[in-house]
C-alpha cells in the first residue's frame, strides 16, 4: 500500500517542479495513494495497521496545533497517530524514516522544541504548541546545514535510510555539547543504528560539523 502522493509539499522547495524525483516517480506509478487535503487536514489513523482500519466506529480524535519547520499546522488526528505518521502520512514530510517503530533504531529522530526525540514514540496529540524540526527543515534554502554538508563530504552513508535520523540526531548531539571526542560522539549517537555500518564516517561527519576536524 502506498501513501505517497504528488502533493507538492512533499518535495524539497529547491527542486524545479518539472524535474521528476524518485518520490514523484513512485507516487505517479503506484496505483493507489492516500489523498491529502493540504488546507484543512484531517489525519486518519496510520494506514499501516490492519486492526486500525477495521475499527468499527470513528476512533477518538483530537485537534492539535503545532509548528513543523516553521510552518504552522492545525490538524485533527486520531489519538493513536504518532508524530512520525503525522509527518510522513499526513504532512508529506517523508524525510523522517520509519525503521523499527519502537524507539530502537533512531531513524525517526526529529527535534521537538529543540530536543532530539524518537517521533515514532511521540503521540501527535500531545504536541499542542510544539515546534518540530525535521531533516527537511535544516537547510536554509540552497544552503545545506553544516552537518548535511559534512555527511556528503565524509561519505557518511551507504543505503541512506538511517541518514535523516543520523543527521537530526547529530544536530541534537552538537547542540547538547557532546562532541568533545570521537568516543563521546559515538556514545551520544548510539541511539541511531546504521545497518550499513557507516559509524566511522558518521562520527567524522559530526566531528567536521562541530569544528573538531
Amino acid at each position, binding site marked *: 500500500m502506498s501513501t505517497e502522493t504528488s502533493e507538492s509539499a512533499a518535495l524539497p522547495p529547491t527542486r524545479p517542479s518539472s524535474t521528476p524525483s524518485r518520490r514523484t516517480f513512485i507516487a505517479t506509478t503506484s496505483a493507489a495513494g492516500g489523498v491529502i487535503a493540504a488546507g484543512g487536514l484531517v489525519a486518519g489513523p496510520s494506514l499501516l*495497521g490492519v*486492526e*486500525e482500519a477495521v*475499527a468499527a466506529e470513528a*476512533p*477518538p480524535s*483530537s485537534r492539535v496545533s503545532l509548528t513543523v519547520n516553521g510552518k504552522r499546522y492545525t490538524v485533527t488526528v*486520531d*489519538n*493513536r497517530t*504518532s508524530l512520525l505518521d503525522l509527518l510522513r502520512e499526513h504532512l508529506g514530510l517523508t524525510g523522517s524514516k520509519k525503521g523499527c*517503530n*519502537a*524507539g530502537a533504531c*533512531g531513524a525517526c*529522530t526529529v527535534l521537538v522544541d529543540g*530536543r*532530539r*526525540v*524518537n517521533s515514532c*514514540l*511521540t*503521540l501527535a*496529540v*500531545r504536541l*499542542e504548541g510544539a515546534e518540530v524540526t525535521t531533516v527537511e527543515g535544516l537547510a536554509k534554502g540552497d544552503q545545506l546545514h553544516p552537518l548535511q554538508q559534512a555527511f556528503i563530504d565524509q561519505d557518511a552513508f551507504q543505503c541512506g535510510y538511517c541518514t535523516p535520523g543520523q543527521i537530526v*540526531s547529530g544536530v*541534537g*548531539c552538537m547542540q*547538547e555539547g*557532546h562532541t568533545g571526542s570521537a568516543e563521546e560522539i*559515538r*556514545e*551520544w*549517537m*548510539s*541511539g*541511531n*543504528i546504521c545497518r550499513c555500518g557507516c559509524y566511522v564516517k558518521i562520527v567524522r561527519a559530526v566531528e567536521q560539523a562541530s569544528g573538531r576536524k
Partner: protein
Amino acid sequence: MHPFSFTKAPSTREALEAGRRGGRYIAGGTTLVDLMRETVERPETLVDISGLPLDEVTVTERGGLRIGALVTMSEAAAHRKVRTTYPVVSQALELSASAQLRNMATLGGNIMQRTRCTYFRDVTAVCNKREPGSGCAAREGYNRTHAILGTSEDCVATHPSDAAVAFAALDARVHLLGPDGARSVPFADFLLRPGSTPNREQALSKGELITAVEIPACPRPLKSGYLKVRDRQSYEFALTSAAVALHIRGGVIREAKVAAGGVGTVPWKLPAVERALIGERPSERLWARAAESAADGARPLEHNRFKVELLKRTVERQLRIVGESK
C-alpha cells in the same frame, strides 16, 4: 493499537480525579506507547501529566535530594547537584537507552517501566504478568536475559531500569500522591517481587501518582558509580549491573551501599556485600571477598547460568573502581 481517549491534565487535582476514574497517566510515553502499539497495554483513557509542576530538583531540609517525577532522564543526569553528589545516579541514567529516549522519558516513568521480557511483549505467548494465570513462557523458553534473583514459579522477568538500581542502593524513597493524600514509601517496598501476582508491579493504589524520588542525605565524602555489563557497548539493557556508593574516612569504609541490576525481578539490594565492607580497609582482597556473596540465593534458569559468575565479577569490579577512585 487500540483506540483511546486523551486528556491533558491542567492541574494535579484534575489528574488525580482522572486517575481515580481509571485514566492511565502518561509522561514521557517511551514505554507505554511502545507497549500500546504491541497491544500489550490497552488503556481506554490516557491522562497526559506532562504539564504538572513536578519537574524540579531540590535539596531537602535534611540535605538529601528530591527529584521531581517529571524531570527527564537527561535533565536529571545533567543536573549539577546530581552529578556532584550522586554520580551513581547520573551514570546509571546516562548508560540507559539513548539520548533521544532520555530526552523524552521521565524519572517517574523510568521506575514504572515494564520488563523487556520478550514473552511479555509478545501477545501470542503466555505470560502471567500480562495475562494472570496463563503461564510463564520464559521459564522453559529462551531465558538468557532473565532474572536469577527474586523469581517465582509464575515470573522470571527482570526489572529493566538502571536508575532504579542506583535509587535502591541509595535507599531512596518514592513520594506518592493519591485521592487519599500524600505518602512516601521506601524504594525497596515500592517495586514488588512477582510472587503469585506478577501483574502487580508497584505498591500503588488506584489513581496514585509518583510526585518525586528522594535520595536521603549521605555522609560526605561519598564516592559512587554505576557499572553496566551488556551485549553491546551502548543503547542496550543490562545483563548485569552494579551501583556502588562508599563512604571512606580514615582509610576505613564507614558506609557501603550496593545494589545490582539485570539480575533481579526488582532492583537487587545486596546487604551481605555491604556488611562485608563496613569497618574494613579497601584492598584487592576485600573487593573479591565482599563480592563473593553477591549472587547468594540465585536460582538460574537454563540459559542464564552465566549471570551468577558475571554478577559477582561485576560487583567486584565496581567495588574496585569506586573504592580506588580519587
